[in-house]
């Protein structure tokens, strides 16, 4: 079953060219560059946060009662909160929480949802129908609503919020992988794999799943942003991280009580959410545009 060497070389060359075109498009596009820069910036903050934050102990929750609700100045760039803690430091510490939360939600949702969708699409018939009906039931809830119910039942904590979001998120990946698996399962290379006696499990793992990966990764980039907003929404209702965690959504929530007199309190943590989510959306959009032949036809010529 070996292919002629020359064919493989041609294929590899073509693949390499596609990648180069893709990379070129991404590097030429100011939007994707901005998005990438934002994401890298926040990841860097998440890693080195404790070393660059001006008041690391306050970020972890130690109050400084003498400096309550100070407006932004040189000492506290983003001002201080009702316990006198430096908001800039707390926002820097919050980057780690937001990024890990959304990464956990999206990756576990993919790990659960993608194989289910691939199995449903590959086997079709009864099993596929059952899996997809159950998926439909989860998708029948408006976004965030089911997460609210689950998080409220489990009780407010960051881990419970992550769990609640995973429960609402996996069906989207199942549906995406299902469509992709349906489109792939009768392609010649899958048929020939079946014809030479490759087992179903191996076909799904080696041929169906990889084919579903590209659209899922694009969706995941966009979802990393949405998950941050969703988690912040839960925190805003007290269903996420609990004080004194420097969680952005929680900070906006606490800031709500004070913000009409102390505008900086809720403004800066919310701005952090906006900018990071903007980064993911800019990058996700640019990738989608670069790989979608219908949208990028003109640029490739």
């Amino acid at each position: 079953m070996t292919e002629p060497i020359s064919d493989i070389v041609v294929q590899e060359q073509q693949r390499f060219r596609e990648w180069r075109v893709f990379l070129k498009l991404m590097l030429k596009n100011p939007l994707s560059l901005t998005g990438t820069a934002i994401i890298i910036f926040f990841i860097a903050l998440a890693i080195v946060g404790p070393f660059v934050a001006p008041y690391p102990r306050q970020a972890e929750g130690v109050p400084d009662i003498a400096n309550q609700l100070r407006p932004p100045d040189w000492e506290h760039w983003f001002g201080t909160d009702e316990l006198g803690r430096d908001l800039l430091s707390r926002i820097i510490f919050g980057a780690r929480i937001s990024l890990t939360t959304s990464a956990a939600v999206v990756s576990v949702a993919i790990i659960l949802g993608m194989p289910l969708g691939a199995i449903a699409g590959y086997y079709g018939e009864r099993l596929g129908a059952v899996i997809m009906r159950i998926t439909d039931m989860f998708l029948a809830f408006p976004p965030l609503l089911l997460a609210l119910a689950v998080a409220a039942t489990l009780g407010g904590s960051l881990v419970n919020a992550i769990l609640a979001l995973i429960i609402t998120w996996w069906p989207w990946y199942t549906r995406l992988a299902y469509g992709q698996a349906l489109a792939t399962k009768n392609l010649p290379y899958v048929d020939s794999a079946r014809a030479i006696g490759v087992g179903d499990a191996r076909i799904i793992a080696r041929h169906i799943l990889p084919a579903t990966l590209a659209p899922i990764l694009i969706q995941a980039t966009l979802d990393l942003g949405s998950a941050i907003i969703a988690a912040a929404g839960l925190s805003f209702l007290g269903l996420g991280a609990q004080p004194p965690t420097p969680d952005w959504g929680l900070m906006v929530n606490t800031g709500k009580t004070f913000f009409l007199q102390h505008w900086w309190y809720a403004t800066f943590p919310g701005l952090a959410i906006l900018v990071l989510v903007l980064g993911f959306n800019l990058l996700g959009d640019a990738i989608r545009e670069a790989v979608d032949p219908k949208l990028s036809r003109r640029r490739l010529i």
Partner: protein
Amino acid sequence: MARGIGQYIVRRAAHALVVVLGVVIITFIVSHVIPGNPAALWVGAHPTAEQIHRATEELGFNQPIQVQFYIYITNLLRGDLGVSIRTHDTVLSDVAAGLTATLELIISAFIIAVAAGVLVGVLSASHRDRVPDHTGRLAAIFGVSMPPFWLAMILQIVFSQTLRVFPLGSRMSTDISIMYPLKTITGFNLIDSVLTLNFAAFGDSLWHLALPSLALAAYPFGLTVRMIRTMMIEVLQENYIRSGFAWGLPHQLILFRYALKNAISSTVIALGMSFAYTLTGAFLDELIFVWPGLGTYTALAILALDYPAMMGSVIIVAIFYVIINLLVDIFQAFLDPRVTL
């Protein structure tokens, strides 16, 4: 073809019924099966041992799971969603009271989002890769990246606190509602005030509606722009559009009449999704603007650990959402009969 659509509607409605059953089952699992002490949640914050015991008996939490499900579903079919701990009214009457306020907010946000979204989306596609396109796309991306509750607060700071041009919250000013009391006919302030020719109340309601619906419109606006733009770019490459331009037809006519018409199926999908997002966006938005609707009710229920009220409104909103999706699908079948195949 008409028969095809009829069959499609029946099939789609049957599917919706199955999905509603699924929603009921999932809500049951969340409220009865997930570990934790549901009886304790059911009686509210700081329960006594005796209260928990009584709730366990009343709600049948000590019975086998299938019996619990039977009790749950018969109560639901009778419209019995329990009694709210916070308001001491039945959840059903509370939900009914908040529904029109929420609908008024959602519908106006939806209208803003769709009107602006379609316009920006079409202009973005027709001026592809030029300034209007960049501006439009950037606006769309900001719209979907904005934490909705934060946008609501920023609008309050800017337009109510600093500029003082819009009110901070609520549905009507106290003085207007005393001097020009509004008779409730439909529950929609804007409609009722027109019906009773109460123009002071109409203006006041509209004035109060501005900020909350604007805050709520951001996400669906971004969504609509994105979908319309993508679809329009495809359609604009079609030959019949290009010959339209070659013939020298007015651009507006080509864009909004011929091109948008053929992007219609994705337009309807965009509208359906926008509606879904305004529905849940309303939860936090209403809370911030003290809008006396379902969202504030649910959010306050969550904050007060008012469990029956929370699960009750969750199930109502979910069923409502299924119905909206059904209507969107049927509407789409009428516009484009191919979907019935």
